């Protein structure tokens, strides 16, 4: 719970006897550690030293006279990408120094970053492979584990097909690990390969990519120092991205920037704001349209920007007209004059940046929310400028990179999609036959009136989102649009408490034939169900125990050095993936161009393969050599511009971490792109335009037979130094020829293009040109290989081309549902999305009467994600000992709930309930409750500590918020509704 640490007495009153199970008691720090079984280690050892010895040990457990090595890595928690400087003696991580040289954190850490050393001391880590034998955890060896798992997978494949095995990957992988895992899924023959981006920013990626081309943060944390107005909506960065606040608060102080926080909860971020706006959860689109109503009404929009660089804003304008101050206040609860003030500030005091997180994305309307935010930025001309932009703060340390690497059910690596051209591109990069890959996929028979699918059709169809794997397991085979329902889960680095409807998940877990959890810690998956057999735990090391690159939220790619060898019997992802590929019989093909040493693929070589295929996203220029040079010269990069001075050896002129796109081959030394779509810079200095991804014109056909044609190319806007001074489409060999630029290609480049193109070389595009020639020539002429387009205010290919407000499925405002219903039921991602039926049933049953409080969820600074790793870290566990619910003072008084007392939070589905402590506070408004989502290990009042393998149980356990959260999925990405449901709260 958020408590003031200085007031020791007050905070102790809230501590519970967590280690003793459900019994409540008062624990101070020392008793806490002792009863958690921690005192046997460091605390007791140091406590027993004489005072003299303690004084000598002041600098830490560094041994005098022993050679120390400094290793540089990156914090493995959030996406900010703070540098970590580790001091190592005799292979032991003995000290941690401030990373003053990193331009991202400049010597700072949050609680998590300051305690990462504990991850590799790891007394709660999974120590060796284990399997469940008749309900008992049993130690086994790696060879036995890989053999048994592989045999079972092959058995399932023969009986139910490749799609019956689900590959759930991780944002904790390095880029190289994520890429290998996606490749493993492709060689296995399924597109059901996913990771945490599904549940954090899948809607962001879909929303922004459909607006202006790429699915990523447009600017950077550092660049927020240039902003004049900073808006946070659904982002509590002070807790979720603590060190980012360093840049925000410096900018606020130095520029006197406005800092506006829109959130249902008065968060720690809101505490720093110049203006706080409380909204009703789930009304983001209404809020944004309400702001834009004032902007259009008063002519505050950027007319030139819209005319030159935006298509379809008139359609948005028509929708916005419905959101006058009265209707906006009726739906959102925000007073009209406050929203007008915020709108005016955002439009006039530029540059303005808009920051959003999971408060915006985790909704049934997540993609539409994101596109509304983009429209606000576009209308005010705040994209493609320093100090502006969509600063999307992503979650885990490599969630951006893992998304880029295609751990996504809708795409191969680097956003090539799943179309035939994409498969053929990667087949060329991997040097395997396209037909071999196709043969790995299932043929799907006709089921329940749905047509059959060929192998080719199946390999081009998106897989099942991680939010619904359990539906795909427990649904009848006929209801899942693939050969059979799911039978096996291969879970690498993903928590089991991260998705709503956990009671449904537990039932599905018990139905699986095979469950494999590969992780440094046994996650909720391994403890929550009543499984007795067919369950394996594989110890994977952390990123501090291996090498590789990771992409921070701002697209900067940082290389991490190995600090220590993998502890206990753990192995890194590379080796485990290689061993599975070997067992499954395709390692030779899969690792054809990747060097393998002692069963371990070399990460540098994996990155080189990524470079060879990653043209579409500009992942081609970041060679391991360049990234390592950036690590060596970290201190040379500017705190605000992220750029190294031109005269610095090796990295001169580069932006830190070569943020993608870093165009062309490494040797042309593109500096990376600090700010996407910035026409004020030459493309060779990281300049850009909006990406021409959706053709050159769009004909909008209306129901009455008329139609409007929209020009999708930019008009009169182009990046600095461009030889083309108007919009242009993406480049192909044919277009180079028309411009006469093909003569700039070398003979070798033309030969490669001709070979790829076969009968039609003119159609070879910049993104599949393995020679990099088309890109190189484009850069020399000052143009972007991907074209120069308008951003799309209306995304015609999506369910609501212009976002419209839709009430959450479980809404307290039943009066608004008739006017603003959720979308109709429909089949998406191989299953029925029955949101409309669920909303209708909730109204008919009067759920809002029995469950009158809105429940929302979010992060705490001390923990991360599902929380097993951080709850196993004694320094963090001490700081947050209890799962809790924030309940408004009025709601608590009405229910006789006391601050610190136990309560039951019950949800509207499955008779779900969770026993947690009450934090009575006005941080949440009346009728709103908040729960953090990092807890697990208790389930509906039952302590499951005994279900973990001995010695691996996290120190802190607690109920998961997702035990009581409910149905609801975004139609575009399958994102769950994690931020709005209904609940009831009663004293326990």
């Amino acid at each position, binding site marked *: 719970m958020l408590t003031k640490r200085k007031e020791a007495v007050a905070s102790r009153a809230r501590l519970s006897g967590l280690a003793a199970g459900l019994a409540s008691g008062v624990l101070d720090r020392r008793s806490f550690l002792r009863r958690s079984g921690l005192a046997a280690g460091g605390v007791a050892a140091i406590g027993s030293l004489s005072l003299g010895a303690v004084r000598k040990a*002041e600098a830490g457990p560094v041994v005098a006279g022993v050679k120390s090595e400094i290793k540089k890595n990156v914090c493995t928690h959030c996406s900010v990408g703070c540098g970590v400087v580790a001091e190592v003696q005799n292979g032991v991580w003995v000290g941690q120094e401030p990373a003053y040289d990193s331009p991202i954190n400049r010597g700072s850490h949050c609680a998590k970053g300051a305690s990462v050393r504990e991850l590799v001391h790891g007394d709660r880590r999974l120590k060796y492979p284990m399997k469940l034998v008749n309900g008992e955890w049993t130690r086994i060896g790696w060879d036995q584990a890989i053999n048994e798992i592989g045999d079972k997978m092959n058995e399932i494949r023969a009986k139910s097909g490749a799609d019956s095995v689900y590959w759930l990957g991780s944002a904790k992988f390095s880029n190289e690990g994520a890429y290998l895992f996606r490749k493993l899924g492709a060689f296995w023959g399924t597109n059901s390969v996913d990771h945490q981006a599904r549940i954090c920013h899948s809607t962001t990626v879909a929303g922004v990519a459909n607006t202006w081309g790429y699915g990523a943060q447009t600017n950077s944390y550092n660049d927020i120092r240039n902003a004049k107005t900073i808006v946070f909506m659904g982002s509590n960065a002070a807790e979720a991205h603590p060190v980012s606040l360093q840049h925000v608060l410096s900018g606020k102080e130095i520029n006197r920037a406005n800092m506006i926080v829109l959130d249902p909860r008065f968060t720690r971020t809101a505490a720093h704001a110049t203006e706080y706006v409380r909204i009703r959860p789930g009304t983001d689109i209404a809020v944004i349209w309400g702001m834009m109503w004032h902007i259009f009404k008063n002519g505050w929009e950027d007319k030139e920007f819209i005319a030159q660089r935006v298509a379809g804003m008139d359609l948005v304008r028509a929708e916005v007209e419905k959101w006058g101050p009265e209707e906006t206040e009726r739906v959102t609860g925000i007073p009209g004059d406050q929203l007008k003030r915020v709108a005016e500030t955002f439009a006039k005091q530029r540059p303005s940046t808009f920051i959003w997180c999971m408060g915006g994305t985790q909704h049934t309307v997540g993609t539409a929310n994101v596109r509304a935010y983009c429209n606000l930025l576009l209308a005010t001309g705040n994209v493609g400028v320093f100090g502006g932009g969509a600063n999307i703060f992503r979650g885990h340390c490599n969630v951006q990179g893992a998304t880029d690497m295609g751990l996504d059910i809708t795409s191969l690596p680097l956003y090539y999609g799943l179309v035939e051209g994409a498969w053929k591109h990667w087949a060329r990069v991997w040097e395997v036959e396209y037909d071999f890959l196709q043969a790995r996929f299932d043929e799907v028979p006709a089921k329940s009136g749905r047509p059959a699918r060929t192998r080719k059709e199946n390999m081009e169809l998106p897989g099942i989102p991680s939010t619904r794997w359990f539906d795909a397991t427990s649904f009848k085979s006929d209801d899942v649009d693939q050969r059979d329902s799911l039978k096996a889960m291969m879970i690498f680095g993903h928590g089991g408490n991260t998705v709503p409807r956990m009671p449904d998940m537990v039932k599905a877990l018990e139905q699986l034939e095979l469950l494999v959890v590969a992780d440094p810690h046994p996650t909720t998956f391994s403890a929550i169900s009543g499984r007795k057999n067919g369950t394996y735990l594989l110890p994977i090391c952390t990123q501090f125990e291996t090498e590789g690159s990771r992409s921070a939220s701002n697209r900067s790619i940082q290389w991490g050095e190995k600090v220590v060898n993998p502890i206990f019997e753990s192995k890194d992802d590379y080796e485990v993936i290689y061993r599975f590929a070997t067992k499954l019989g395709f390692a030779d093909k899969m690792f054809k161009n990747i060097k393998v040493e002692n069963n371990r693929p070399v990460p540098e070589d994996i990155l080189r393969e990524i470079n060879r295929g990653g043209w579409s996203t500009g992942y081609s220029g970041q060679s391991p050599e360049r990234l390592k040079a950036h690590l060596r010269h970290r201190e040379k990069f500017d705190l605000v511009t992220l750029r190294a001075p031109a005269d610095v050896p090796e990295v001169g002129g580069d932006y830190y971490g070569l943020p993608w796109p870093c165009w062309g081959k490494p040797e042309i030394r593109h500096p990376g792109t600090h700010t996407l779509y910035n026409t004020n810079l030459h493309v060779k200095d990281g300049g850009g335009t909006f990406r021409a991804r959706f053709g050159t014109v769009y004909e909008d056909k209306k129901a009455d037979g008329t139609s409007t044609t929209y020009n999708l190319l930019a008009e009169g806007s182009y990046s600095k130094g461009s030889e083309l001074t108007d919009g242009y489409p993406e480049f192909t060999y044919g277009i180079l020829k028309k411009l006469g630029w093909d003569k700039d290609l070398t003979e070798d480049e033309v030969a490669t293009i001709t070979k790829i193109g076969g009968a039609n070389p003119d159609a070879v595009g910049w993104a599949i040109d393995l020679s990099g020639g088309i890109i190189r020539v484009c850069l020399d002429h000052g143009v972007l290989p991907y074209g120069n387009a308008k951003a799309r205010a209306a995304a015609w290919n999506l369910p609501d081309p212009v976002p419209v407000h839709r009430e959450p499925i479980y809404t307290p405002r039943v009066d608004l549902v008739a006017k603003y219903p959720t979308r109709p039921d429909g089949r998406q991602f191989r299953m029925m999305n029955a949101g409309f039926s669920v909303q209708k049933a909730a109204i008919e049953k009067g759920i809002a009467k029995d469950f009158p409080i809105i429940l929302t969820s979010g992060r705490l600074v001390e923990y991360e994600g599902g929380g097993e790793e951080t709850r196993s870290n004694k320094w963090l566990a001490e700081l947050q000992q209890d799962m809790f619910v924030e309940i408004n003072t009025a709601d608590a008084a009405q229910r006789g709930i006391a601050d610190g007392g136990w309560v039951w939070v019950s949800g509207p589905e499955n008779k779900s309930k969770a026993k947690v402590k009450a934090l009575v506070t006005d941080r949440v408004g009346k009728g709103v409750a908040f729960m953090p989502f990092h807890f697990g290990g208790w389930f509906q009042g039952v302590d499951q500590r005994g279900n973990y393998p001995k010695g691996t149980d996290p120190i802190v356990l607690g109920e998961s918020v997702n035990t009581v959260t409910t149905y609801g999925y975004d139609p575009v990405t399958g994102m769950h509704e994690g931020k709005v449901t209904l609940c009831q709260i009663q004293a326990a």
Partner: protein
Amino acid sequence: MSKVEQKKEGGMDRRSFFRAGSGAAVAAATVVATGAEPAAAAESASERTKARYKETEHVKTFYRVNRY
């Protein structure tokens, strides 16, 4: 259990423990600032809440690299 009793039992409070135990806490400049003090002296309530800011080398470096 009060703070005083806790110290009698183990001889160290939280602050001293961090100081003695680990470089992990160095990042918080205020913790570093106390680094030169003896480890185990018992503190009264007023001592515990007194201003501890000292402009150490770590603090100066932090200001320099962050352009304060």
